[in-house]
């Protein structure tokens, strides 16, 4: 099998250093493996530290109470930890954000991919993606100082901190994500499919909604689910604009406290390490982690199940 067994040719000018090549190759493989391991190990480290503190927390607070209590009062002398309170706020702000971002993002994506001239598309898409690069703290102040006062003109009962403007602005913040990823999916639908539809006497609108969008469905849904994960995990906008009042319910006009906002509050405050309130942020963090994990799994599953393979 080895080339060494062949008789050496004295006139050969080609003498590759196979031995060195093999050693270098091995070393490189190990090095790359190590780097890959670092990111995996970091993820495991985060999950483990979350897990340990969460276990500590549940030694003091029964899981059942955590899931069913209707109050979130970590600093009271008789503290109650009903995650539903924070969950309802996260659900509310995310829902408002999606109601804004899905139509806005999807219609932008359709326009960019199907109607905009190539020249316009070349400018518009990067411009849209810049919107995704704006720091969320800027969005937070935008919601608090601009959107809320503006909305108060029409809705006098709106609080200075509220889920509505935080949700709307969060929707604007995640629109580029949906628009950009959906546009990729729509643009990737082969032109042959469009031609086929036109050749059957269908109009452009009928072609887009009847043929192109269904073909791009898996990519579009994946982008929406990714946006849900972003909305659920979004911190600065809701911490700044939605308020800090743990309150169960789905009223968008009053201040609420999302899971992320609670973690910010405790992390920045002077809550002593080891106290029950301190441990509670890990339980909330774990909930958040599990929630986004579920969304990512759904997205992964959906894309695999519904991805259309063109020839």
């Amino acid at each position, binding site marked *: 099998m080895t080339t060494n067994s062949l008789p050496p040719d004295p006139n050969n000018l080609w003498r590759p250093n196979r031995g060195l090549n093999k050693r270098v190759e091995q070393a490189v493989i190990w090095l790359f493996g190590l780097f890959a391991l670092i990111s995996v190990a970091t993820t495991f480290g985060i999950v483990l530290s979350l897990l340990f503190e969460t276990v500590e927390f549940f030694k003091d607070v029964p899981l059942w109470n955590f899931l069913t209590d209707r109050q979130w009062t970590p600093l009271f002398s008789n503290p109650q930890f009903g995650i539903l309170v924070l969950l309802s706020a996260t659900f509310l702000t995310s829902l408002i954000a999606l109601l804004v971002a899905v139509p806005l993002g999807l219609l932008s994506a359709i326009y960019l991919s199907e109607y905009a001239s*190539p020249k316009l598309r070349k400018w518009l898409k990067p411009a849209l993606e810049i919107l995704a690069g704006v720091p969320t703290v800027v969005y937070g102040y935008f919601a608090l100082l601009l959107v809320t006062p503006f909305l108060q003109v029409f809705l006098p009962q709106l609080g200075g901190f509220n889920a509505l403007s935080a949700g709307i602005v969060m929707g604007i913040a995640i629109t580029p994500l949906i628009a950009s990823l959906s546009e990729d999916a729509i643009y990737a639908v*082969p032109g*042959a*499919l*469009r*031609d*086929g*539809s*036109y*050749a*059957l*006497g*269908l*109009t452009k609108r*009928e072609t887009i909604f*009847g*043929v192109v969008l*269904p*073909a791009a469905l898996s990519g579009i849904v994946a982008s929406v689910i990714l946006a849900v994960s972003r909305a659920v995990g979004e911190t600065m906008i809701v911490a700044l604009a939605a308020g800090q009042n743990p309150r169960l319910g789905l009223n968008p006009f009053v201040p609420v406290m999302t899971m992320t906002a609670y973690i910010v509050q405790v992390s920045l405050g002077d809550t002593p390490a080891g106290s029950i309130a301190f441990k509670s942020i890990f339980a909330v963090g774990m909930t958040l982690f599990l929630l986004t994990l579920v969304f990512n799994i759904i997205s992964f599953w959906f894309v695999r199940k519904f991805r*259309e*393979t*063109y*020839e």
Partner: protein
Amino acid sequence: MTSQSVSPVATEAALRAKNVSVYYGSALAVRDVNLDIFKHEITAFIGPSGCGKSTLLRCFNRTNDLIPGARVEGKAMFHGTDLYAKDIDPVYVRRRIGMVFQKPNPFTKSIYENIAFAARINGYKGDMDELVENSLRRAALWDEVKDKLRQSGLSLSGGQQQRLCIARTIAIEPEVILMDEPCSALDPISTLQIEELMKELESRYTIVIVTHNMQQASRISDKTAFFNAEATESGNKVGYLVEYGDTEQIFNDPREQATQDYVSGRFG
């Protein structure tokens, strides 16, 4: 070498090209084509690559409109009506002059929906199940797919996909079916099936087929148009019609030397 049109009086011309030239941007792709395509016949366009036969085909149902920068001069007529007149909506043109493409392009829908979809949008009021079955039968695909109508059209083999595309085209009952090298992506057995299918469809439809395969043209077509290309000073290739006539005449007794060379396999 002049382009010429032969117009036997026996049958009615369904399609007519009158001095048709097509430009992509500023580049001329086909120049000055004159020919008549007759009802209930199969007309084949043959010729070397870049001779404009697909471009001309696409004129007849305004598929060229979908290519940015494409422009048609002269008149492409359908039963005497100029297809490029101002008040003609290309959507209606394509509704009556269907097209089957080089690569099978079934929709990402079930086999059933591939056929029912366009029929429904076009306002078909009859029994949809019946239409789907009849279309699949006429496309000689029914027996192979009748138990899996709910499966994706993409799950079929290439030849089956192409027959599905033909089925969805005939489901909306066009008058003309344009076929742009429909067998070039298929194996010989699928090719044979499509050819047999075309022979059967001939009684109901006018068919125009672009093909690189001369045996195919001689096997199935009634008339054959031979196109050739010449290079211009700027290096572009411009296609033109060399000779058009009955398939038998084109293959056995061509008037032009270029046709003779091409059909005998000396170039192309």
